[in-house]
């Protein structure tokens, strides 16, 4: 399975190649990949239904206890199934939607990579692996929102989405580290069994805060909800897939996954149910302010995500059953509705629902799909959305945390959602026929098959909810409920939730009826909304830019000297403090040197000092040379033959280099005043003194155990080499050496780049393009 996911990433990279061969058929071809995953997942179902969960182990970085182990239980199975099935449908849809798009290959690469990241996210058992996939979905989402990168709005939205989700990701990483500390394991399967140890741990509150920030940003919970509607700048298949059915549910998935580990406490229940309920209301309320169909749907997604979070917060068995049902229902109808929105946009050329009307005549099939999906969104029988909403209301009625407040928020959310559903289904398709920028036609089959299938599923599961019993039961048991008895039915008899539904139907219809007027009134609130969280985000960004400008002007003032002096003074301060104040300085000074050694050291010092005072460039280079050769001699005298040889060779080549350059430059001139020289002398002198003191105190201190003892004794037995230095370079520490090779390569690339630009400029200015042979 892990290999299959990795292979999926490779397949994503191959999309451009496939596109060269198969052209417009490529999306259909790519759809085979998620479809195959779905089939494979389906074959696992029987064993999952028996209550077993699957652990596919795969070591990644064994030394750090990081694995790529996959955990497949009811919860991850449900999410993985949604990801693969909707993924396949979205790819089929993309084939029509982005037909003729020049950047189709790029789109396919990123969306397939996203699909694999998302699958990895829901299947990962290790926290680190989960985090890596989590960030991958943020990055791919960024690339998809900014798909039309020439559009400044898309770029800005992409950046906003990235900053918010990745900022939350950082908090999540901190939370995961604390979680692993508190639970003594990086494995989710283990952590979920250590609920009591975790909730009683001293780190519980900070880790909960961090994890919740991560989950809330990803799932667009209040006050981080603003990035999601802006993300609608992405092409519609992306909105249908990432920003309704899959990625935004990652946060909810994480909360559900951690529910057995972290749930059941007062802070968890209160935070989740309140934040969820507020998000619900915010989403529903902001939705009806909009006439853009994608934004309407986006805000209603925010509302649904709020509902899911709230249900997790309530946390009773009934609430968890409602959670799973609502999740499934929402993925089905919202995916379908987004695709319908894409069809409308594609055919009419506008996204404004008030600019459309009477379209059912030209696109009856689309209208039918839209109506079915909207009924589910509205929570009307006989669709799955109805069952989800009834279960939601039932569990809200049963909760005792702020029960009244949450009920009020949930009920308001419900009837506003109903109004949204009515707007989406009725405004474009019924009423007076209006002229739109493009002349609409019935959408092609490729675009309709996805939404139609999802709508049919919504209806089918609504009519025969018994089909879902075992799925919901298996999933809920993964959430920590023991022996759940799940029995979904469409008709619960006349009870309070049903009455609330009827009331919301009435109120929702009224809102729909007077929508234009309400929108006008709500416009009065605009100043308030402009001061909301999004405003805060923008202030934060502007502040960051201002701070960056200020510190750049302050620190990067263009004088190399000042940078150096500042760095040195900080170093002097910190090291000097540690050396003189924190630890009493103990220095033992002993001179046990032979005469010839002192001579060599003196020669070295003389060379270094001479290079500073020489007025002639040649003399300065010669002085540096003397110093270098003296150092080589020191290496010879003190048992470092390899170093001596290297130093000698490098000195020789350095002289060649300097000779090639220095004599093309002007002679030394005295540029600084005596005062500046004294200042520099003081800085240099104190730094030199510091280094001397540092080394003397190190020599005097306790000898730490030498890691090289291992290398000395194992060089021959393990490394089969007698030259220990070389064995370290090419065997024990070969990875470091590899890095150093890359540094050399980088320097060469830099040299080459400078040369190349030089030659290009030169040719341009002198018209000598033919003169320099290209040695590439």
């Amino acid at each position, binding site marked *: 399975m892990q290999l299959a996911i990795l292979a999926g990433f490779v397949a994503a990279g191959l999309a451009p190649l496939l596109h060269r061969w198969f052209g417009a058929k490529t999306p259909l071809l790519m759809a085979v990949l998620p479809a195959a995953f779905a089939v494979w997942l389906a074959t696992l179902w029987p064993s999952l239904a028996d209550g077993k969960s699957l652990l596919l182990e795969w070591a990644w970085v064994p030394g750090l206890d990081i694995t790529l182990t996959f955990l497949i239980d009811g919860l991850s199975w449900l999410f993985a199934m949604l990801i693969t099935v909707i993924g396949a449908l979205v790819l089929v849809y993309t084939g029509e939607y982005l037909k003729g798009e020049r950047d189709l290959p790029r789109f396919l690469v990123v969306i397939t990579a996203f699909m694999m990241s998302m699958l990895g996210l829901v299947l990962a058992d290790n926290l680190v692996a989960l985090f890596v996939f989590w960030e991958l979905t943020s990055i791919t989402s960024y690339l998809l929102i900014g798909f039309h990168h020439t559009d400044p709005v898309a770029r800005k939205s992409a950046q906003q989405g990235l900053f918010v989700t990745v900022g939350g990701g950082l908090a999540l990483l901190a939370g995961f580290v604390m979680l692993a500390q508190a639970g003594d394991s990086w494995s989710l399967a283990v952590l979920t069994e250590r609920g009591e140890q975790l909730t009683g741990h001293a780190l519980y509150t900070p880790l909960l805060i961090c994890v919740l920030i991560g989950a809330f940003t990803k799932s667009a919970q209040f006050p981080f909800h603003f990035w999601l509607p802006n993300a609608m700048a992405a092409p519609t298949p992306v909105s249908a897939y990432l920003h309704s059915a899959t990625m935004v549910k990652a946060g909810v998935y994480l909360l559900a996954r951690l529910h057995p580990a972290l749930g059941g406490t007062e802070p968890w229940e209160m935070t989740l149910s309140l934040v969820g309920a507020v998000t619900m209301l915010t989403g529903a309320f902001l939705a009806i302010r909009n006439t853009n169909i994608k934004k309407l749907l986006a805000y209603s997604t925010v509302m649904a995500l709020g509902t899911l979070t709230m249900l997790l917060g309530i946390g009773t068995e009934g609430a968890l059953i409602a959670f799973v049902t609502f999740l499934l229902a929402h993925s089905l109808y919202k995916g379908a509705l987004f695709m319908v929105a894409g069809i409308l946009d594609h055919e009419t050329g506008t996204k404004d629902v008030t600019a459309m009307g009477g379209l059912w005549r030209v696109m009856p099939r689309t209208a039918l799909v839209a109506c079915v999906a909207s009924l589910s969104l509205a929570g009307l029988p006989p669709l799955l959305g109805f069952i989800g909403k009834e279960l939601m209301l039932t569990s809200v009625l049963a909760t005792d945390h702020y029960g009244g407040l949450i009920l009020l928020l949930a009920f308001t959310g419900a009837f506003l959602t109903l109004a949204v559903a009515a707007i989406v289904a009725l405004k474009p398709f019924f009423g007076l026929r209006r002229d739109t920028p493009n002349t609409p036609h019935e959408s092609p089959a490729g675009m309709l098959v996805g939404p139609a299938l999802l709508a049919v599923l919504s209806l089918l599961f609504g009519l025969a909810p018994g089909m879902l019993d075992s799925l919901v039961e298996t999933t809920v048991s993964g959430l920590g409920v023991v022996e759940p008895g799940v029995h979904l039915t469409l008709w619960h008899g006349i009870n309070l939730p049903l009455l609330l539904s009827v009331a919301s139907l009435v109120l929702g219809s009224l809102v729909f009826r007077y929508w234009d007027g309400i929108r006008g009134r709500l416009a009065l609130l605009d100043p308030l909304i402009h001061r909301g969280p999004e405003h805060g985000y923008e202030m934060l960004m502007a502040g960051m830019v201002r701070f960056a400008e200020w510190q750049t002007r302050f620190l990067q003032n263009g004088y190399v000297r000042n940078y150096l002096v500042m760095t040195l003074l900080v170093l002097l301060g910190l090291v000097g403090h540690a050396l003189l104040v924190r630890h009493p300085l103990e220095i033992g000074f002993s001179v046990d040197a032979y005469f010839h050694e002192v001579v060599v050291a003196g020669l070295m010092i003389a060379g270094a000092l001479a290079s500073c005072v020489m007025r002639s460039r040649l003399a300065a280079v010669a002085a540096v040379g003397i110093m270098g050769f003296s150092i080589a001699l020191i290496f010879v005298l003190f048992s470092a033959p*390899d170093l001596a*040889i*290297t130093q000698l060779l490098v000195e020789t080549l350095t002289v060649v280099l300097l000779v090639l350059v220095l004599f093309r430059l002007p002679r030394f001139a005295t540029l600084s005043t005596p005062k500046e020289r004294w200042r520099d002398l003081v800085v240099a002198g104190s730094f030199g003194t510091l280094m001397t003191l540092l080394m003397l105190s190190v020599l005097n201190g306790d000898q730490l155990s030498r890691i090289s003892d291992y290398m000395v004794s194992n060089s021959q037995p393990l490394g089969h080499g007698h*030259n220990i230095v*070389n064995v370290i370079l090419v065997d024990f520490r070969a990875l470091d050496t*590899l890095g150093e090779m*890359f540094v050399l*390569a980088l320097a060469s690339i830099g040299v080459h780049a400078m040369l190349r630009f030089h030659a290009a400029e*030169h040719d341009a200015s002198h018209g000598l393009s033919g003169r320099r042979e290209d040695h590439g």
Partner: protein
Amino acid sequence: MVRSGTLILNVAARLLLPLQLLFSVFLLLRGHDEPGGGFIAGLVASGAFTLYFFAYGRNALGEMLKVSPRDLVAMGLLFGMLSTLPAWWAGEPFFTAQWWTVPVLGIKASTPLIFDIGVYLAVVGSVLTAITALIDTDHVDESGD
């Protein structure tokens, strides 16, 4: 600025080049047991090429090398990376040294040796890149000014 050298330099460079290169290979191969190794051997070889280059100029060096110094750097990196892979084949962690006995010459064939060859190539390539770059700017200057 770099003119073709004097007669003595020309003859010396021509005679010394093969010897120096041979010596560098010798240093490379013995490096595991005695002072030497990829870095040192690479520097010796670069010194040899630099000498040749001062004697005969950039074009002669290019003709002799056949590949550009940058390609040598790339090959060096490739060798370095490739030497890490056989460990996977043997089912051991990435980068674990693998040893094979080769009956001829008594040379120990191993991934560290391949790695050292990579170091050698990278060093030769980057030194020559820098030096040819400086010479090239000289040529451009002279032709232009």
